């Protein structure tokens, strides 16, 4: 991957300020459009985790990658100014909802609002209804399990789209494993109905207020939530006529 020199100009591009602004006080405030107003970044305070090995923990790994030790990185947290339309949406939501952000991440042109679960319903309603935001389309809901993120192990990710303004936004909320409750947004986005059911099915996140929170992909009497990180791949003994086929992970360790 080639890195561009910081002051490299694209053909035809003229910069109005030659020196990058180093003093944060002198930096332009949100909403001002200056070419040197680069999105700010600070490291994510989430606890770092360390992963070992490639495929397995303990015995059974013959790949030779068992000795790999790797510190888990997280994307940087973004600070104003974010640039483009992002500042407008950020400030608008902050006006409409009282203190809605845990953090904001702008990565590769994709904006993510991390919103506490207590504010989720209100924020989602505003995101849909406010004329300046108008994210009227909910693509889907996806769960992520971060076992290292203590107190917020389970994340729920909503992908929103505004067809009015042709924009996309990601909203993320989290809950601890010990209290896996997140309010449902089905009343705002009916499209989230099955997606929340799937997230409940796969991650065991309870969406309070959902009209019919039942398993959707796994059988109704299934025990456990397969997409959690502590749930092994294929770790189910299969019983047939008194004989038990051992789970895959006991035949060879994938953990």
């Amino acid at each position: 991957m080639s890195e561009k020199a910081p002051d490299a100009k694209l053909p035809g591009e003229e910069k109005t300020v030659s020196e990058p602004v180093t003093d944060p006080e002198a930096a332009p405030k949100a909403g001002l459009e200056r070419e040197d107003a680069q999105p700010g970044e600070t490291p994510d305070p989430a606890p770092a985790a360390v992963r070992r090995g490639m495929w397995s923990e303990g015995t059974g790994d013959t790949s030779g990658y068992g000795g790999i030790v790797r510190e888990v990185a997280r994307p940087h947290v973004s600070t104003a100014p974010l640039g483009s339309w992002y500042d407008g949406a950020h400030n608008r939501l902050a006006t409409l909802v009282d203190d809605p952000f845990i953090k904001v991440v702008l990565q590769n042109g994709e904006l993510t609002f991390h919103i506490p679960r207590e504010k989720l319903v209100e924020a989602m309603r505003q995101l849909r209804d406010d004329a300046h935001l108008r994210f009227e389309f909910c693509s889907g809901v996806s769960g992520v399990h971060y076992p290292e993120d203590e107190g917020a192990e389970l994340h729920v990710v909503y992908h929103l789209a505004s067809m009015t303004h042709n924009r996309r936004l990601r909203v993320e909320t989290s809950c601890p494993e010990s209290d896996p409750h997140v309010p449902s947004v089905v009343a705002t986005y009916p499209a989230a109905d099955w997606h929340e059911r799937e997230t409940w099915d796969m991650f065991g996140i309870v969406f309070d207020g959902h009209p019919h929170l039942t398993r959707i992909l796994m059988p109704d009497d299934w025990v456990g939530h397969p997409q959690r990180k502590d749930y092994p791949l294929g770790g189910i003994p299969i019983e047939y006529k008194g004989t038990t086929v051992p789970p895959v992970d006991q035949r060879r360790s994938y953990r």
Partner: protein
Amino acid sequence: MTAQHTDFYASPGDETEGTVYTAMGGGDFADIAREQAERNDETLVINMGPQHPSTHGVLRLMVECDGETVKSIRPGIGFLHTGIEKNMEYRSWTQGVTFVTRMDYVAPIFNEVAYCLSVERLLGIEDQIPQRATDLRVLMMELNRITSHLVAIGTGGMEIGALTVMTIGFREREVVLDFFEAVTGLRMNHAYIRPGGVAGDLPETGIAQLRDVIAWLDKHLPEYAAFCNENPIFKGRMVGIGKQDLSACMALGVTGPMLRSTGYGWDLRKMQPYCGYEDYDFDVITWDTADAYGRFRVRLAEMWESLKIVKQCADRLEASTGQPVMIDDPKIAWPAKLVTGPDGQGNSHEHIKHIMGESMEALIHHFKLVTEGFRVPAGQAYVPIESPKGELGCHVVSDGGTRPFRAHMRDPGFNHLQSVPIQCEGGMLADIVVAVGSLDPVMGGVDR
């Protein structure tokens, strides 16, 4: 289902505990009719599927009927759930392509592109994908869009008795699949698109074969319009069935031909272009009836638009013969000069010669790249694309490792099946088949 006290599956000597429910006894229709007469209403609960031939795979529909009128209908899914997303967390980023291609198996190329675009965005290499690789992706996607629409139209036609539409649909599909086989080695489940580019260039005869495919489609695509467009039986079954207006589409997250059949020309290829679609000349097709017939007409016209793009791709690919089809970054690029061997497997003899006979370091590098894989910077990405069914996107999360921390496909069919009740309730029982067929769900993508 009948309740009995004998367990037919018990081994000899096993005690049977409690009531055993089994479908073996079947039941006498006279008993059902008598029970119904006692209830003194016309309501009947019918289970349709999951093995019903007109449910596009293993979709289960629970229908409550009053006579032949549908009072309520609830789809049940999950019968084809294979844990693809979980499995991907245990494989490298490149291997993930092999999994996603098996999701919506009627439009495998789109799954691969959606996944690879997301991975490439996380890697920050979106601008470095060679032009020829992008053109090949567009070519494969648009041909795949035609085959997917052919299946939608063909099976949808078959389900209402228009068997010829199915047979000619699969005939055209076969021609395109032969081309796919020549390019990727496989008719389905290609795993052709890879992070960084594509798995291999066109074969030597590729352009000639492509011209043949185009000529064939040019000749045969008009047949569908001739068979169906003004066919009174076809229209009698399709017009006004499965109505769903724009606001219902927005609320339920419905995209693709269904959304465009309401008159709203939302197509991600135009609205949020990817893979250079802004440089192609094509139109977004809309219809204004918001019913099954409108969706059929949108699909029919979209095949022509796809063919237009395919022709433009053919010209571009002819002009760019010999240019690279994989990113010029040895940390990411897998060998992409594959040729199909006598065993049908793809291999790059040049590359094998290099790593096995010339350079020890190249061998070590190749081994590391293939077994361990490349690292993807931490973060998450979601790049939606316009699949034949609607918005298809892959939400990938990386923790900085060589495997996806989480990969989730947003399959349009999953959303679209949510609109079965709104389209079918209050209609006739026989129209369920038409409405579900016009949704074009593929259960492999819905259940993953």
